[in-house]
């Protein structure tokens, strides 16, 4: 009797051949847009236009259209900024860190995750432009010569670090994504005719797939992954410095960088999970994005969710242990003050809800995975809201204590970012291959159902 003990689940099911991979993934790029796609795209464009109207109104009228007041000077806008940047981190984590760890299961989700990164960072950047109030002067954040303004930018300021971190992150992510796309664009080029051949031909930069090119290409990918890994960690670290280097009780904590990075991975994986669960059904990619992938994603969500849970509790301990009365009050107020409901939402959504994934049945259940991923994203939005607003709304002077209530300006600008994100994502999913064909083919032999049957 021979016993076969599978160490891992198959990453590609359905006995696919190399040609099947090409067909399955090129199909949606080559076919005319489906009715579902058109409806979904139209809805996102409408949302984008509605939100875009609010953004224009914000710029026309000024930041008075938001619910900010004398005490709460930062609220939804910065919450949304940090939330979107955090979501973006999952793409780089999947494409870079998992590449360094040689995790083969990343191959079917990295493309869409990286695209999501780019769109999420753009959404985040849009909130910086909104908050500037005068977006046409955005270039003042760049180090320009003295005669241009009065002084150089202050390189000691975390906000300037943010400018450098976010723009570097955005450019390097685009580069990494594009380099990953080149071989697949060449595949589409070689199947296409006419105008499509010209467009995909130009985009694929004349790729032929020679062994020497592939060898250098792999080297480039590995080094880019090595560069992106500290980059992605630095980005959310620097975002957390925006708060941590201030002297506001509740912000001034050394735990922020790792805590923010863990939270970023947490929310980003949840967003990737949501997008992939929809994409695999719409494009019939169940053989490439399998229950194994969903289950692995859920494991990371549980791990990072628990890490942020530990961070929340550590913050309380450190506040108590510090002996600083303002620090103690900030945290007590966070959990029991007038905004207690946002703290409760954060704790429930982020720390408790992912614990359901300890059960294999629930981890591999598509509906549960989708719902929990949405809940996690809501929770992570509340985390940023809790950090920002509850630390501000009761300052040192009790006569200026206030509450924060969003106005339509806040909500409309947030809606804009959703419209923008989904419009970009739908365009991407129509015109570019959502799964990295070359990488899936490279793991097909070792990790597919067909090949491992002897």
């Amino acid at each position, binding site marked *: 009797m021979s016993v076969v003990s599978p160490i891992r689940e198959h990453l590609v099911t359905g006995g696919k051949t190399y040609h099947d991979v090409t067909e399955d993934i090129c199909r949606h790029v080559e076919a005319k847009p489906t009715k579902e796609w058109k409806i979904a795209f139209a809805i996102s464009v409408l949302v984008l236009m509605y939100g875009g109207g609010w953004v224009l109104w914000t710029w026309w009228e000024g930041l008075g259209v938001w619910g900010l007041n004398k005490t709460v000077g930062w609220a939804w806008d910065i919450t949304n900024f940090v939330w979107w940047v955090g979501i973006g981190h999952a793409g780089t984590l999947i494409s870079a860190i998992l590449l360094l760890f040689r995790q083969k299961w990343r191959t079917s989700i990295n493309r869409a995750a990286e695209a999501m990164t780019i769109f999420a960072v753009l959404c985040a950047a849009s909130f910086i432009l909104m908050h500037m109030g005068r977006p046409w002067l955005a270039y003042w954040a760049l180090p320009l010569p003295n005669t241009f303004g009065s002084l150089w930018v202050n390189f000691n300021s975390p906000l300037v670090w943010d400018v*450098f971190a976010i723009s570097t992150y955005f450019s390097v992510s685009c*580069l990494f994504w594009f380099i990953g796309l080149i071989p697949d664009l060449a595949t589409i080029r070689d199947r296409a005719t006419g105008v499509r051949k010209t467009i995909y031909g130009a985009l694929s930069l004349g790729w032929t797939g020679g*062994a020497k090119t592939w060898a250098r290409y792999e080297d480039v990918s590995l080094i880019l992954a090595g560069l992106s890994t500290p980059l992605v960690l630095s980005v959310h670290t620097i975002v957390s410095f925006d708060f941590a280097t201030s002297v506001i009780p509740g912000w001034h904590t050394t735990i922020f960088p790792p805590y923010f990075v863990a939270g970023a991975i947490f929310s980003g994986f949840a967003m990737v999970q949501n997008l992939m669960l929809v994409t695999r059904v719409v494009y019939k990619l169940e053989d490439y994005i399998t229950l194994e992938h969903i289950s692995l994603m859920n494991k990371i969500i549980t791990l990072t969710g628990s890490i942020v849970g530990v961070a929340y509790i550590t913050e309380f301990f450190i506040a108590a242990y510090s002996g600083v009365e303002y620090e103690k009050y900030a945290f007590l107020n966070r959990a029991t003050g007038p905004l207690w409901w946002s703290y409760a939402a954060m704790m429930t959504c982020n720390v408790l809800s992912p614990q359901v994934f300890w059960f294999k049945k629930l981890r591999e259940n598509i509906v549960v995975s989708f719902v929990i991923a949405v809940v996690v994203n809501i929770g992570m939005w509340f985390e940023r809201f809790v950090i920002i607003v509850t630390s501000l709304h009761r300052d040192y002077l009790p006569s200026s204590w206030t509450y924060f209530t969003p106005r339509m300006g806040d909500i409309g600008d947030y809606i804009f970012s959703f419209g923008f994100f989904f419009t970009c994502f739908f365009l991407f999913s129509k015109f570019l291959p959502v799964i990295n064909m070359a990488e899936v083919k490279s793991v097909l032999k070792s990790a597919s159902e067909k090949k491992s049957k002897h």
Partner: protein
Amino acid sequence: MTDKKYIVGIFNDEDVVMDAVQKIRSKGIKIHEVFCPYPVHGLDHALGYDRPRMGVPAFLFGITGTCLAFLLTFWTLGIDWPMNIGGKNFFPFPTNIPIVFELTVLLAAFGMSFTFFFMEGLGPSVKPLIFDLRSTDDKFAMAIDLNKNTVSDSDIKAFLSEVGAEEVNVKEV
């Protein structure tokens, strides 16, 4: 008019092509290139190429970024217009680490990638020489340049079939 004549062997499987490369090279036949739909590890070594050294441009561009960023922050805040910020040094080094780091990564990533495009002759207006359209889909295409080999083309064709080529075609450029 034909300048160059290539014999193209089409293979189905990465292990067969890897084996074929070794056998053909041991016969003294020079292989122009093997085109694959995905990276086959070890194929570059079997073909006798040097190990890729893209880390060299990455390091050189990276160190350039480090120096430029350091000069930028040091010159602007330390020399050109020193500012008193909270009574600290005019040029506190730790607070410049983020800028220096980001610019290092930026230049290393872009410098290395554009070096790669340049080395491989990749660009938006490049018209590639494709030996077989299926080599970006599911086949491995081995091209042998007849002008660079002394072995007769019928021998090469026979030998290609022998080592496992599914099809043997001739491509004149």
